[in-house]
């Protein structure tokens, strides 16, 4: 069949559905049928699934002209989705097209939720299209004979590539693709991405360094634009609105009319804990919603999650309180309104959430922004501008993630085994590892075979073994099993299953939370009040409780920093405030706070850099306001603390948010001294920053993920009860052991490099320091905490830095006693 004939089959089908294909879809079909690879830039709900699924089917028709009578077996395509919640939608859409054309093609799903029997069935006979996650794809590479499974593959589509790109899951994907390029000779590689600042780079990362793939690739952009309207929920009484906080419950009543006036409302929170609390409080204040609202987050059991998703589609729910677990992909047509609680911190994330609401043609998506504390209204004002000016962020890909590489190599070693000389060129051709040296490669090989660089005479280290032919292979079944359980790059705290005593799975919560409780204690989880009965083998058995008020389950989990684009806009909004413009409703609403800030200190203008000091019961506070976003503040605070600590022995506790940072000490800090010693200098920045890094615990925290991903810490697994206690250690302990005994370990060093590259952003820091040096420094010695300082000084997540002797510090401290 000619290409034009094939395409008319698709067009006919579109017409039969009374749809019209978009130009970007047609472009993608043609490019695919011409054998090209590429990246498709299209928003959710724009028909991106058909842009790529259609040509995959057409290609099959082309190669199998008698497709109506004879089905050719074997896997044709893999569809990667970052969230399992999306897979059902894609499956339905794909199956519909395949069935209507009478192709006999089957569409299957394989994720963490797929049952054991279904997996076994798939192993015997793969579906034609497999929808899966990066982790499940890795697990397929961990099974024997994967090369045969993937041999017939004609396409792999990585959906929501922008989501994966800036994370280690992206690296995992790059490595999987590097293998598929070899074992699947007919493969076409496609990505689908929402709009991000670095689309071209995103395409390069996806396709890797092979010129063959890069030359033969296209970047297709859909012209569709989603119109978005941002509405802030402004408290009626600003005077009583809190200066700090992250829950936003003060404004609960404000969202009730919004929920009532809309078919289905999605309420997005930033954390699972916040999600639980909001759900609880809405029901408490408005029991009439019982049965009409639901909750959705990643720790709730799969059945409940699927039920909620289905209920949204059936329009049987009025509102759903959710976390990022509902961020992506699927279009829930009945959703009319979105409410965002608290700052989303990034423009892309905000747009993505806004895009979750149904857009009738010509009408914009509406998203409400509910601030959790007063200054967050500035963020709302900034967000509006960002949306208007179409500002988008970059997603920075990871480089040289040895932890992911080591995990991948062991994965290959437990399935078919591998020959280094065959795999090295593949690795070297990925974007992530383009700069890997021969020496680093050998280090990785030594690491998985010897456990270090120098072989001890009688060492018993056992992981990957080398056969006489030079094949790297895992022989131990226990090691293979432990590795399979640990595949993945999302590191969370040790999780525990929560089940009713009578059976019935509720969800998973972090072990540290439950470890603080005794049997008989109650807590709120998944919207229910539960009483802990006993803990048995990584499982918390509970029963329903009628007791009121209880601890709401909480989760650790990172805070999102403001992106650089976002912080620039934020700074400009605030500076317009210094000029008393107050030209947006949000800034107007904040008048009295700004007035108070002016009274007690100042609102810094464009050429001013504000430093405030004051004393409270907690000690001496020094606050600095660069308005550069959390990451830069994190770096700048430890840099400054380090430089000050060189002047005389002192101990600091550091806190930062998106507006500024605090150095808290038990000693008075003379800011004039800081200014006179030119401590904001950008000279020796790199050096000082590295040294400050050693003095704080940032790298130590990064090491946690690295230790887990590279298989040094085995976490055990919630649903498989295996006796592993004697093999459990924690990454903190390991970090110390490496520091003391193997400081040149590449994974140990990676913790520092990652902190540097992904967290501290030296480049941005340098620019910020240069800006400060051109500004007038204004030091205000205040009587008490100012409105600007309040959210920072009350932050409990802190970093510390000290140049005092520990013994001297201990002498000033007191012992924490039993409560």
């Amino acid at each position: 069949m000619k290409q034009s004939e094939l395409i008319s089959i698709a067009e006919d089908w579109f017409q039969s559905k009374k749809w019209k294909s978009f130009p970007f879809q047609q472009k993608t079909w043609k490019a695919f049928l011409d054998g090209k690879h590429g990246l498709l830039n299209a928003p959710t709900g724009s028909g991106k699934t058909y842009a790529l699924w259609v040509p995959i089917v057409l290609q099959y028709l082309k190669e199998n002209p008698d497709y109506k009578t004879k089905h050719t077996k074997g896997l044709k395509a893999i569809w990667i989705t970052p969230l399992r919640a999306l897979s059902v939608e894609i499956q339905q859409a794909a199956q519909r097209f395949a069935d209507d054309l009478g192709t006999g093609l089957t569409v299957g799903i394989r994720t963490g939720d797929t049952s054991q029997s279904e997996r076994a069935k798939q192993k015997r006979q793969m579906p034609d299209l497999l929808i899966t996650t990066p982790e499940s794809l890795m697990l397929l590479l961990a099974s024997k004979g994967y090369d045969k499974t993937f041999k017939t593959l004609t396409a792999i589509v990585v959906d929501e590539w922008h989501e994966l790109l800036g994370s280690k899951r992206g690296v995992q994907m790059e490595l999987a693709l590097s293998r598929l390029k070899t074992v699947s000779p007919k493969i076409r590689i496609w990505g689908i991405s929402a709009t991000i600042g670095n689309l071209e780079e995103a395409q390069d990362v996806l396709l890797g360094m092979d010129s063959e793939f890069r030359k033969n690739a296209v970047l297709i952009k859909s012209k569709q634009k989603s119109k978005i309207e941002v509405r802030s929920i402004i408290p009626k009484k600003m005077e009583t609105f809190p200066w700090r906080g992250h829950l936003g419950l003060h404004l609960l009543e404000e969202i009730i009319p919004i929920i009532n006036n809309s078919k289905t409302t999605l309420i997005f929170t930033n954390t699972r804990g916040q999600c639980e609390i909001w759900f609880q409080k809405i029901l408490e204040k408005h029991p009439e919603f019982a049965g009409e609202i639901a909750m959705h987050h990643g720790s709730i059991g799969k059945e409940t999650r699927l039920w909620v998703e289905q209920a949204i589609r059936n329009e049987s729910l009025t509102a759903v309180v959710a976390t990022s677990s509902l961020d992506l992909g699927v279009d829930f047509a009945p959703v009319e309104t979105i409410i965002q609680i608290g700052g989303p911190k990034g423009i892309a994330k905000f747009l993505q959430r806004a895009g979750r609401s149904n857009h009738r043609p010509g009408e914009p998506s509406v998203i409400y922004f509910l601030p959790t504390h007063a200054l967050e209204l500035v963020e709302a004002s900034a967000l509006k501008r960002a949306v208007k000016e179409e500002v988008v962020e970059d997603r920075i890909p990871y480089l040289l993630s040895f932890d992911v590489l080591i995990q991948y190599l062991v994965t290959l070693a437990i399935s078919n085994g591998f020959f280094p000389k065959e795999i090295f060129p593949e690795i070297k051709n990925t974007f992530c590892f383009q700069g890997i040296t021969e020496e680093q490669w050998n280090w990785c090989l030594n690491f998985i075979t010897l456990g270090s660089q120098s072989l001890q005479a009688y060492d018993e280290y056992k992981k990957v073994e080398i056969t006489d032919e030079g094949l790297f292979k895992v022989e131990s079944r226990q090691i293979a099993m432990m590795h399979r359980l640990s595949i993945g790059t999302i590191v969370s705290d040790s999780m525990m299953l929560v089940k009713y005593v009578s059976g019935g799975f509720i969800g998973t919560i972090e072990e540290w939370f439950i470890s603080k409780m005794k049997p008989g204690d109650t807590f709120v989880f998944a919207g229910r009040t539960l009483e802990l009965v006993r803990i048995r083998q990584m499982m918390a058995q509970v029963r329903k409780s009628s007791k009121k008020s209880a601890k709401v389950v909480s989760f650790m989990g990172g805070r999102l920093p403001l992106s650089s684009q976002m912080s620039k806009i934020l700074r400009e909004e605030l500076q317009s405030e210094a000029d008393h413009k107050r030209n947006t409703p949000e800034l107007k609403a904040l008048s009295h706070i700004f007035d108070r800030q002016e009274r007690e200190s100042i609102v810094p203008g464009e050429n001013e850099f504000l430093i405030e000091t004051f004393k409270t019961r907690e000690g001496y506070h020094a606050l600095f306001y660069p308005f550069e976003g959390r990451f830069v503040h994190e770096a700048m605070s430890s840099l400054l603390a380090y430089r000050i600590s060189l002047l005389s022995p002192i101990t600091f506790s550091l806190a930062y948010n998106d507006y500024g940072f605090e150095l808290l000490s038990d000693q008075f800090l003379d800011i004039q001294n800081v200014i006179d010693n030119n401590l904001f200098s950008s000279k020796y920045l790199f050096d000082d920053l590295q040294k400050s890094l050693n003095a704080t615990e940032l790298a130590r925290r990064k090491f946690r993920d690295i230790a887990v991903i590279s298989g040094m810490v085995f976490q055990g697994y919630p649903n498989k009860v295996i006796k592993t206690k004697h093999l459990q250690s924690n990454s903190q302990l390991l970090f110390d052991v490496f520091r003391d005994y193997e400081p040149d370990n590449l994974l140990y060093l990676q913790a520092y490099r990652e902190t540097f590259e992904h967290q501290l952003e030296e480049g941005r820091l340098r620019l910020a320091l240069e800006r400060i040096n051109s500004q007038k420094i204004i030091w205000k010695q205040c009587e008490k905490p100012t409105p600007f300082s309040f959210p920072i000084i009350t932050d409990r997540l802190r970093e510390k830095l000290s140049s005092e002797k520990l013994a001297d510090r201990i002498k000033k401290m007191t012992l924490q006693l039993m409560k």
Partner: protein
Amino acid sequence: MIQNIQIKNNFFILHPSGAIFWEDKKMLLIADVHLGKVTHFRKHGAPVPANAAFKNLEKLTEISNQFQPEIICFLGDLFHSKLNEEWQDFEKWVEYTKAEGILISGNHDIIPQYLYEDLGVKVFDDLLLDGFLLTHHPTEIKGTFNFSGHIHPGIRMKGVGRQFVKLPCFYKTETQLILPAFGNFTGKHILNPSEKDEIFAIVEGEVICVSKKIKE
């Protein structure tokens, strides 16, 4: 750098390594060495630096050279796992050391008793000496003072300016003293003492009483 304490008219030295020297009996008390742990991890594919394994025996040698004890009593969890290569190092060390060895068996001690006995190390479930009860798990028996391990005790110190520090410690109540873990790859468990307890924290090679302020 060290702390001298007196219990029931006996004299004890608390050493920053985590060991206690019982002067009257010339006996070293040492808890939770967890020998073999590093090798055990390595054997199961977790590449903990192999060098870390030697440090424990080096520390044991240093401390026995310093105090020249007649008896070294291990309060349990001497060996972390099944037999592995670290056992041979331990054998050499037992041969080298002049003191008599005693092991109070702990939950991790699964190596057959006769292997210890072949080396001349006596193994007990617990031991009562002049009113002092030596056990692995903290145990209260009326009229005795209990020395134990198992817990790997640590405490949390708090200071002005939101300062916090966690430290391993000797944890003493009226009737018992729990020793910190001696092994270097062990970790600690944070306890919240009551006002009556005496806490001796290990801070950069020093043993410091941190509960004094409360007593005053």
